[in-house]
C-alpha cells in the first residue's frame, strides 16, 4: 500500500464512510421503492398516512405504560398487552350488557344528543381506565412486589406467567369465552371524504376516486390520546406524585431516604400505565370492532417495540416511537408486503438501535460505564 491509498483508506475509516455508504444505499433503495409507488397515486399515499396516524396514537397509549413501568422498576411488563385486552373487554361489557354509554341521554333527556354521546363514551373509557388500574395494582401487589429484591429475570418470568394466565384464564368459557366477539361501538360511525373540501360520506355510498377518507373514530382517537397525554405530562411534570415518580426512577434508595413512599409510587405508576392501556383498549376496539382474549399480544408487542424505539423510559420517546411504528406498519403493508410488516418493524428497530443504542430519546445507559 502506498501513502496516497493509505490516506484515502484512513479517511474512509475516520469518516465512517463505509457504514454510512451502506446505510445510504439502503435508504435510497427504500425511498426509490416507496416514493415511486406513492407518486403513482398521491391520494392512496395520504390515505395510508392517515391510517398510520390512527394506529400510531393507539400504540402510543400502550407504549406509555411500558415506558413508565420500565423507567421506574426496569421491568419489561409483558402482561401490559393483556391489561389492554382487559380494558377492551370491560368496555365491551359496559356497552353491550349495561348500556353505560346511554346513561347521560337516559338521565337527562334534554341534553343535546352529541354531548350526551360524548359524555357516555368518555364514561365508558373512564370505567375501563379505572378497572385496568385496579387490575394492574393487584398484579403488581401479588406478582411483582415480592420479587423487588430478586434478580430482574425473576420478575420478567412472572410477568410472562401473568400474561399467559390472563390470556388463558380469559379464554375459559365462563370468563371472556374463547370466541371472537363483535364489539358494539358506543357511537355511530360517521365518515367524511376529502376532495375539494370535506364532504360527508353517506352510508352505503361510494367515495369518489382520488379522495381521502377519514371517520369520527380517527378524530376521537386523536382527541382522547392528546387529552390523556397532556394529562399525563401534567401529572409527571407538575404534581408532587410526578416528582416522586421521577425521583424514584432516578434513584430508589435515595428517594426512600428523602421520605418518598417508594412502594406507593411504584404502585401508582403501574396504575397510571394500566389506565392508559385501558383507554387504548377501548379506542382500539372501537376502531377495529372485535374483541378476543388474545387481542393484546400483537398490539402489546408493537407498542413495546415503539417504546424501545423511542428510548424506553422516555415519555416523549414512547409517543414519537409509536407514531413511527404506526407509519412504518401501514407503509410497509401498503407498499412492500403485509406479511413482512413485522419484519420491517423490527428491522427498523434494530437499525435505530445500531445508530442510537438507547433509542431515539433514550438517555445513555447509566447501568454500565
Amino acid at each position, binding site marked *: 500500500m502506498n501513502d496516497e491509498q493509505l490516506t484515502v483508506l484512513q479517511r*474512509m*475509516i*475516520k469518516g*465512517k*464512510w*463505509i*457504514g*454510512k455508504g*451502506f*446505510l445510504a444505499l439502503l435508504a435510497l433503495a427504500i425511498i426509490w421503492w416507496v416514493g415511486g409507488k406513492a407518486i403513482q397515486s398521491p391520494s392512496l399515499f395520504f390515505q395510508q398516512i392517515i391510517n398510520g396516524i390512527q394506529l400510531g396514537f393507539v400504540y402510543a397509549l400502550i407504549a406509555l405504560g411500558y415506558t413508565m413501568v*420500565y423507567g421506574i422498576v*426496569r421491568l*419489561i411488563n409483558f402482561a401490559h398487552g393483556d391489561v389492554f385486552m382487559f380494558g377492551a373487554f370491560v368496555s365491551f361489557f359496559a356497552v353491550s350488557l349495561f348500556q353505560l354509554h346511554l346513561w347521560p341521554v337516559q338521565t337527562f333527556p334534554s341534553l343535546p344528543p352529541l354531548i350526551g354521546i360524548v359524555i357516555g363514551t368518555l364514561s365508558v373509557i373512564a370505567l375501563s381506565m379505572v378497572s385496568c388500574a385496579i387490575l394492574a395494582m393487584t398484579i403488581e401487589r*401479588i*406478582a411483582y412486589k415480592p*420479587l*423487588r*429484591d430478586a434478580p430482574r*429475570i*425473576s420478575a*420478567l*418470568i*412472572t410477568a*410472562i*406467567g*401473568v*400474561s*399467559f*394466565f390472563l*390470556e*388463558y384464564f380469559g*379464554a*375459559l368459557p365462563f370468563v371472556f369465552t*374463547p370466541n371472537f366477539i363483535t364489539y358494539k361501538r358506543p357511537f355511530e360511525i360517521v365518515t367524511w371524504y376529502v376532495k375539494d373540501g370535506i364532504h360527508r360520506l353517506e352510508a352505503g355510498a361510494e367515495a369518489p376516486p382520488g379522495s381521502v377518507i377519514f371517520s369520527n373514530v380517527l378524530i376521537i382517537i386523536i382527541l382522547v390520546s392528546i387529552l390523556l397525554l397532556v394529562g399525563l405530562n401534567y401529572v409527571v411534570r407538575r404534581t408532587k406524585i410526578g416528582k416522586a415518580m421521577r425521583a424514584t426512577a*432516578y434513584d430508589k*434508595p435515595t428517594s426512600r431516604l428523602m421520605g418518598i413512599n417508594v412502594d406507593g409510587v411504584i404502585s401508582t405508576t403501574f396504575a397510571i400505565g394500566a389506565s392508559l392501556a385501558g383507554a387504548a383498549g377501548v379506542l382500539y376496539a372501537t376502531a377495529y370492532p372485535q374483541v378476543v382474549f388474545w387481542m393484546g*399480544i400483537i398490539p402489546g*408487542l408493537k407498542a413495546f*417495540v415503539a417504546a*424501545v424505539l423511542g428510548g424506553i423510559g422516555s415519555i416523549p420517546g414512547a409517543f414519537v416511537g409509536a407514531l413511527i411504528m404506526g407509519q412504518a406498519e401501514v407503509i410497509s403493508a401498503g407498499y412492500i*408486503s403485509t*406479511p*413482512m410488516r*413485522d*419484519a420491517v418493524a*423490527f*428491522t427498523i*428497530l*434494530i437499525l435505530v*438501535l*445500531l*445508530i442510537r*443504542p*438507547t*433509542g431515539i430519546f433514550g438517555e445513555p*445507559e*447509566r*447501568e*454500565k*460505564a
Partner: protein
Amino acid sequence: MKIDRQTLGFWIVLLGLIILVQVLVSLGILSPFWETLLKIGAVMSIVSLGLNLIYGFNGQFSLGQWGFYAIGAYAAADVTYRWTQMKNASGLMILLLVVLLVGVALYLVARLVSRLRGLDPLSAFALYIIGVLIAAYIGVQLGSLLINPVTQALSALPPNLSLQIVYLLAVLLGGFLAAEVSYLFGLPVLTLGSDYFGIATLGFTIIVKVLLDNSDTLLGFEEMKGARGMVGIPKVTSWLWVALFLVLVIIMLRNLLHSSHGRAIISVREDEIAAKAMGIDVGQQKTFAFVLGSFLAGLAGGLYAHINGFLHPNTFNFIKSFDPMIIVVFGGLGSISGTIMAAFTWALVLEGFLRILLPAGFETWRFVVYPLFLLVMMLLRPQGLFGGFEFPYLRQVLPKPYTPKTQEQLSLVHAVEEAPEGD
C-alpha cells in the same frame, strides 16, 4: 489413570439413565408418547444449555435462541428432505460449501477488520455482509458442481447408513449455519446494553419466523412450503441420537467452563469492568458465548426437525421463545444439571402429566395451571426450582457471586455501579 469417585458416579448415573430409557422403549413399556416427550426434553435441554451459556454464564439477556433453533431446524430438514424425497445430495453439498466458505470469509474479514484500526462498527458490519454474500454465492455455485459425484458416492452405501450419515451432517451443518448467522448478527448487536440486546434478539426471532412464513415465495425454497408447513422430513431422530448429542454437549460445556476460557466467560457476567481490568477481551468473550450458544440451538433444531417429520413456522413464534428462558431460570442460572432437569420436567409435566391428570372437560385448564405454577414457583423459589444444585462433577470451582447483605453494602455496590437496579 485414576478416575475420581464423583466423575465415575456421574457417568454411571447418566449412561445408566440413557440405557434404561432405551431398554424400556425397546421393551415397549415406555410408549411412543413418553418417548417423544423424552426426546423433546433432551432437545429442550440442549437449547436451554445454549441459552444458559449465553445468559446464565455470560450474562447476555438473549431472546434470540428460538430464532437460531428455527434456522437449524429448517436447514437440517431441507438437507434430509432433498436426500430422501429428491434423491440427491444437493441440500447437503450446497449447505456444506456455504457454511465452509462463509466461515472462511468471516475469518478473513475479521483479520482485515482487526488490521484497519479505528474502523467504526457499522462499517465493519458492512464489510462482513459484503464478504459473506460473496462467499455464500461462491458456495452455492461450487456446491452445485459437487452434487452428482457425492450423490453417487453416498448411494453406493446401504440406504439406511447413507441416511444416517446425511442426517448427522445435516444436524451439524444446521448448528454451524446458526452459529455463523449468530456471529454476523452478534457483531453489531452485542454492543447494545442488556435490555436492548434482549429486544434486538427478540426482533431477530420474529424476523426469522416471518421469513419462514414466506420461505417458498420470498426465499425461494419450494419444499419448505412457507406457512403451510414442511412435510416429508424423515423421522430419524431416535432417543439414542438425542442422548448422544446431549452427552457430548454436557462434556463440552463442562470442560469449557472448567478451563480458563470458561472462567473468562463467567468473569464478564460478574463484572465487565473488572474483567477488562484483568486483561480479558470482553467483546470477544461475549461473541464466543453467543456463537457457541446459538450453535447449540441450531443443533437442537436439527434434532427436533427429525422427531415429528413436520415443521411449521408457528412452532418458532416469539411467544414460544420464552420457553428456553423459563427453563433456564427454573433450573437456576449458571447450573448445567439444573437446566437439564428443568428441561425434562418442563416437557414431561406440561405435555405429559398435565394431559393425563387433568380430568375430562378440563383440557383447557392446562394453560391456566401452567402460568399459576410459574408464578408460585417464582415467588417461592426465585433462585430456581433446583436452586443452584449441581452435580459435583459439573460444579465449577469458583467463588460465589457477591451478593450484598446489609443496606450499607448495598449502597456501596450501588455507588460503584451507579445502577438503579440494585434496589
